[in-house]
């Protein structure tokens, strides 16, 4: 690997890390705070991709300009999903939540299939493949935007969760539900809000990946797996950890990919298993306590 290839691979990794972090952010928040492993997360991302696609091809709205629209739509969908479906099992054991989010994912995927059909789609704007070329190294611009958005979202969410009243309320429900209730936090709307925010982020991720890859209704599963991988690696209950997790996975993928591309997924998963054996809470997560771990 010469120095230009090294630089390009490094760029590829950081950029991919930005995309993976955005994909994983909502998933990690919901898991860390609501203790819900949202197996439908990938399906929400794909929904975001399809909405972006429709806005672009039918209404001519540029994906970046339409981003707020996609995000708001996904927020509403997520809020409603939590409030009227997931909330029924929110106090149930983890398995029940697994099943219900799995079912929601399947339902969503099939709804998407009904509405948009199975054709492979991709959003290609005139600037889709644009990249900044610096000395032999190409920096893809749309993915760079995903990285920027990822960092922005991490900062915004971190500030929101730590500095605002609502944010603190959300975090308190994740720390100790009963104590939160005692201090007057209304859990139902908080949970719905949290989930809505998570799907909103999924929508943003979907919007961006719609431009960089192609998608079909069932493309969500892969994203859920990556979200899982990044969240577990970074550690739950820690928003900036998602960025770290994303970057690390991405860098492993691209560097392994350079030498043995067929093995990159295998290596990522093996490393994850090793890490979990040594440090179950992930890199930056809070150590598990005996009381409330599920």
């Amino acid at each position, binding site marked *: 690997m*010469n120095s230009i290839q090294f630089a*390009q*691979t490094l760029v590829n990794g950081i950029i*991919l890390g930005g995309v993976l972090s955005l994909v994983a952010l909502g998933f990690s928040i919901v898991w860390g705070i609501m203790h819900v492993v949202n197996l439908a997360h990938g399906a929400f991302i794909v929904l975001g991709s399809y909405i972006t696609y429709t806005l672009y091809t039918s209404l001519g709205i540029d994906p970046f300009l339409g981003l707020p629209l996609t995000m708001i739509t996904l927020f509403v969908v997520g809020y409603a999903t939590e409030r009227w479906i997931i909330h029924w099992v929110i106090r149930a054991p983890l398995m029940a939540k697994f099943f219900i989010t799995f079912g929601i994912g399947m339902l969503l995927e099939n709804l998407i299939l009904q509405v948009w059909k*199975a054709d492979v789609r*991709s959003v290609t704007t005139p600037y*889709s493949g644009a990249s900044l070329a610096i000395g032999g190294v*190409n920096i893809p611009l749309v993915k760079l935007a995903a990285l920027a958005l990822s960092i922005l979202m991490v900062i915004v969410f971190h500030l929101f969760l730590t500095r605002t009243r609502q944010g603190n309320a959300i975090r308190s429900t994740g720390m100790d539900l009963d104590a939160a209730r005692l201090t007057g936090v209304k859990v139902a709307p908080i949970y719905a809000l949290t989930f809505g925010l998570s799907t909103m982020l999924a929508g943003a991720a979907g919007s961006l990946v719609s431009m960089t890859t192609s998608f079909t209704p069932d493309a969500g599963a892969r994203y859920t797996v990556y979200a899982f991988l990044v969240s577990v690696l970074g550690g739950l209950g820690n928003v900036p950890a998602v960025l770290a997790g994303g970057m690390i996975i991405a860098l492993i993928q691209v560097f392994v990919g350079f030498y043995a*591309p067929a093995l990159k*997924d295998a290596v990522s998963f093996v490393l994850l298993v090793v890490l979990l054996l040594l440090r179950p809470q992930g890199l930056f997560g809070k150590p598990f306590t005996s009381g409330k771990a599920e």
Partner: protein
Amino acid sequence: MNTPLRLIGLTTIAAILAACGGAAAPAPTAAPAASTEKQPAQPAAASGACTISFGAAVSFTGSTAAEGKYTKDGYDIAKDKINEKGGIKVGDKMCKLDIKYYDDASSPDQTAQLVEKLITEDKVNFILGPYGSSSSDTAAAIVEKYKIPMIEANGAAESIFARGFKFTFAVLSPAGNYLRGILDLVKVKDPSAKKVAVVAETDKFALEVAAGAAKYAKEQGFEVVYNDKYPAKATDISSNLTVIKGLNPDVILGAGHIQDAILTIKQGKELGVNAKAWGFSVGPTAPEFRKSLGKDADYVLGAAQWTEELKLKGDANDPFSTPQDFAKAVRAKFPQGGYETTIPYQVAESAAAVFAFQRAIEKAGSLDAQKVRDAIAALDFDSFYGKVKFDERGINTFKPMAVQQNATDGGNYTVGPAESASKPFEYPAPAWGSRK
């Protein structure tokens, strides 16, 4: 909330989800067919004589849903054409055709289960193949077990035929031949183009295409500078492309599915990877390729089993006679099918499979599985799809591959083989930065 209420709520949700999940799996069956037996079922069939039932497990959902639809359309148009003319002559009876479909969701394991179901429960006479080599592979094992002939039209991997099976036949050209046409065109157009990079998805079919392409390239005097793969259904192949970029290939050949072809072009453009010719085994000939990429699809070559522009002529018994006639019929039958600009070859080859069955059954004069199987093995005819003849393994090595190109004017033209080209081959593809 109290427990009984929660229980009711959960049960309701579970029931709804199960219903939706269940509803998604089985595909729409062929329109008039509700019967799963060989006897006549519909009063509409005026002949009242007999029905030959075919079974097909095809991917209507999942990663190969698009190609699955083309396959079904091909089967249906052939079925309707045959039924229009009275059906298939079995001895002295005219029997209508009926096809029972199931959705295998692009999963080879499901294909095997569904083919077994078609044979054992639905008791179909014959099997029409699924889409894709992996699915055809699992289906082949099942039909061999039950000794039911299958003609498949969409599984080109030669490994399917390496097991000595007697009941599976493929009307299409084998995987190893896919990218030959592209290399032939480049060699003639630009003898100085020497460096070829081959990148493949980790998939049975794609790996065979890549191996066949690399072997053929070497035989033709090219230098294969790169020959590696990426995981199946990858969403990022920047690593492969970064390596390829450093090797400055003249030709980049990709083997995989349409999603991979789209991804390779998108990421190739992002990373500034340039080549004088880009060719893919699957993807560029389908309408969604152009729809997904817009102008970025320009110059991209695709291997095609068949195109509507080929100068082929079927023999006297061929229902469609020429590719152009077939294309017209497809457009008339499926006006909303997305076939306005291109007819993907999966439609043609799937129809060809049904017609091959027709000829075999008529030659055998019966529906006996072994007799029909032997008749299939002896087939040798020219059709709108090309020559249909099976080698001793059961695969059609007698039909050449065509090459299509996404042209700069937005159309999709047959540029190879040279004698059938409807438009000259646009070469070289300019660097990404200098296109407009």
